[in-house]
Each structure stands twice: as structure tokens, then as C-alpha cells.
């Protein structure tokens, strides 16, 4: 009787674990990873036990200069769209997967930044000769075009 109860509890526990794992692998990844590949499951499982520092490459290559199999997770970088990390999976010496891991609130964060830190501005029609303009924004000028450009004229006038 007790044995049976333990058995049921155990299999229930396993089922729950599977469900959570399934959620993490198939559902959550779709939200947080920007690219998913077949190597996803492997890379996810290895993520915790592999080195999380990208620059410690001294022990990541073998004697032939090839990268050892495994998952490499880069340092977290903060960008305007939130924190990001690149995760690379090497299998049989070949790059098999690149995942970009975003913090779960990345999407929301970018909207917030847009609203809160939005520069104040007003627009008005004005001539370029006005002393109120110091910069010109336009389709990227090349060197050749710069000589006759408004930006160049402004720079000269203000030296």
C-alpha cells in the first residue's frame, strides 16, 4: 500500500517535472529566444553547467584550435532594448546554434524607454541660416557630398 503510494507520488512528480520542462523548452523559449534551432534542448540543458564567460577561451579550444563541443554563453550586455546574451552551441567542432537570449521584459522595457526618456522637441519651419540650428539630419552624406552640405556650412560658420 505504502509502496503504491510512493510510486504514485513519484510518477506524479515526474509528470509535473516533465510538464515544467516542456513549458520551459517549448513555450518559454519561444518568448525569450529570438532564434530557435533543433539544438535548443541541448543548449538549454547545458547552459547551467558550461562556462558563462566568453573571454575564457583558453580552455574552450582543443589542440587543433577547434572549439570543444558544448554551449557557450556570452556575457550579458545591456542595450537600449534591455539585457541580451548570445548563446552558442558547438557540436562535432561545428557551430550548430546561435541563440539570442533576451530578458523577459525586453519588449516592454523598450516601450517604456520610448515614453519616459523621449526627448522634448518642437518643430517649426526655419531657414538653415538661422543661428538656432547646429546640426543637420539627412540621408547619410558621403565625403564628396559633405563639402557642399548644410552641415559643413554650419560647422564653418560656428568655428
Amino acid at each position: 500500500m505504502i509502496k503504491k503510494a510512493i510510486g504514485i507520488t513519484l510518477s506524479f512528480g515526474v509528470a509535473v517535472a516533465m510538464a515544467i520542462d516542456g513549458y520551459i523548452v517549448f513555450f518559454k523559449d519561444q518568448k525569450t529566444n529570438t532564434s530557435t534551432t533543433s539544438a535548443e534542448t541541448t543548449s538549454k540543458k547545458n547552459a547551467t553547467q558550461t562556462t558563462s564567460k566568453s573571454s575564457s577561451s583558453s580552455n574552450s579550444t582543443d589542440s587543433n584550435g577547434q572549439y570543444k563541443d558544448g554551449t557557450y554563453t556570452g556575457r550579458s550586455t545591456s542595450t537600449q532594448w534591455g539585457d541580451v546574451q548570445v548563446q552558442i552551441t558547438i557540436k562535432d567542432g561545428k557551430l550548430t546554434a546561435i541563440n539570442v537570449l533576451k530578458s523577459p521584459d525586453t519588449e516592454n522595457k523598450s516601450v517604456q524607454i520610448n515614453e519616459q526618456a523621449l526627448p522634448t522637441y518642437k518643430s517649426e519651419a526655419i531657414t538653415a541660416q538661422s543661428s538656432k540650428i547646429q546640426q543637420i539630419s539627412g540621408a547619410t552624406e558621403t565625403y564628396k557630398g559633405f563639402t557642399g552640405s548644410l552641415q559643413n556650412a554650419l560647422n564653418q560658420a560656428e568655428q
Partner: protein
Amino acid sequence: MTEAKYYFPNRVIQMMNVPFTVKLAVTEDDEVVQTILNDITEKVTDKLRQMDDDFSPFKNDSMVTRFQNGDEAPLIDSDEFQAVYAQTVIAEQMTHHYFNATFAGKYDPTGLVKGWAIEQAFEKYLRPLLMDAKIVGISLNGGGDMKLAVKQGCDFNWGIGIENPNDTQQILTTYYIQDGAIATSGNSKRGEHILRSNNSEIEQVTIISSSLVDADVWATAGISAGTEEMATLITESNLTGMMVDKKLGSIDFRNGVIKNAQKTSL
């Protein structure tokens, strides 16, 4: 009360095939300021050169070229390459791939690298200058895409004229910005990194954001998306700026709301 008089000492750096302008707003333009400007220009130049060496697809030993040729090392060893790579992936995704980091079938982050380089150099070298009593404003403009800031509590605003795509000696409007970034993309001058839809009548897109990478990515995406699709993206992602359409003229938008929509058929 008299209006404060400002001076705008500047230096031009030629790098990545575009002119970069380092420009300060100062209350006094003396030798000290000129020395600071020279010193900063040198540091910014070095940073831009390093970014160009690392990310130019035209240099044989750049990390981008190596990665294009199947060498995965940059992605594993370089924090900066990882940061750029991650951003291009996010940029593609958030713009529904109207921003594209692939050129001729190969990974090419050129459309993002200039903005990222400006952003990095600005924060590292220019931002600290605002501590100086005489320096009230700082800006770094790379071929029309720029990052700007002013001293806190200061009433100075950077005035940015938006070039008329049909007459580059004229400006369409002026934005006054204290702290932020502005980027403009057009379809006439450097089209190699911009993929245009065939029926697009869009001529120019200007985006204002707190981040230059963000502004630059959306301006590029706008040209590729075309006017009607861009209108959807503007609403979806709360964009601010203006676009110029051949038929519809100038269209202003702020926080995702298109202002003069009644004049257009969008």
C-alpha cells in the same frame, strides 16, 4: 534677461566613408575648450577606427569578414561582436525584418554598427565633458545620424534641421532636442544596405529616440517598409519622427500617433 550666447566649436572626423562631426556648445570658446575638443576628437577617432577595423565587411581581417567566412571565434570570444550580433537579431525581429542584417547572403551588421559606435563613443568620451563648467552641450553626428545631450538644468536646446530629400540645401523642419538621438534614412544616396519594396513612395524617414541604434534601425526599416507599412509600424512601436512621401508630402508622428493623418489617406 538676455539670452545666453553660445559658441559651437567642432571637429570633423572622416571614417567609415562618412564625415563625423564632434560639436560642443560652450559659453566661452577659449584655448582650454579647444584643447579638450582636440583630445576628445582623438579618442573618438580611435574608437571609430577600432569599430571600423572590427566590423567592416570590406576588411579581410575584420571580425565580420572572418565570421562571414565561417569562423565562429568572434561570436565566442568578443563581447562586442556578441553585443552587435544580438542587437541585429533583435532589430530584425522588432521591425518584422524590414531592417535586415544580411547582405548578398552574408551576415552584415553595417546598418547598425555606425549608430552603435556613435553611441559608445558618445557615452564614454563626450558625456563626461558635461561636468566642465563651460561646456553646456555635446553632440556626435555621423553622416546625419546623431546623439545629443545638454547639461542638466540648462535651457540650451540643440537645433536639428531635417534635410529636404528633394533639395539638400533646404530644410523641412527643425527639432529642438536636449537629450536623445535622431537618425534619418533616405533612398537616394546610399541604397546598398536598404532593401526597398517596389511600390514604395517613401523618400525619407527621420526617427527620434533616446537611443541612436533604435532611431537608426527604425529609420532604415521605414525606407524598406514603405509609407503604408511604416504607418502600421509607427503605431505598433510608438515611434516619433517624420517621414516624407513623394505623393503625400511630410507626415509627422509622435509616440505612435500620426498627426496630420487627416491630410493623408493612410
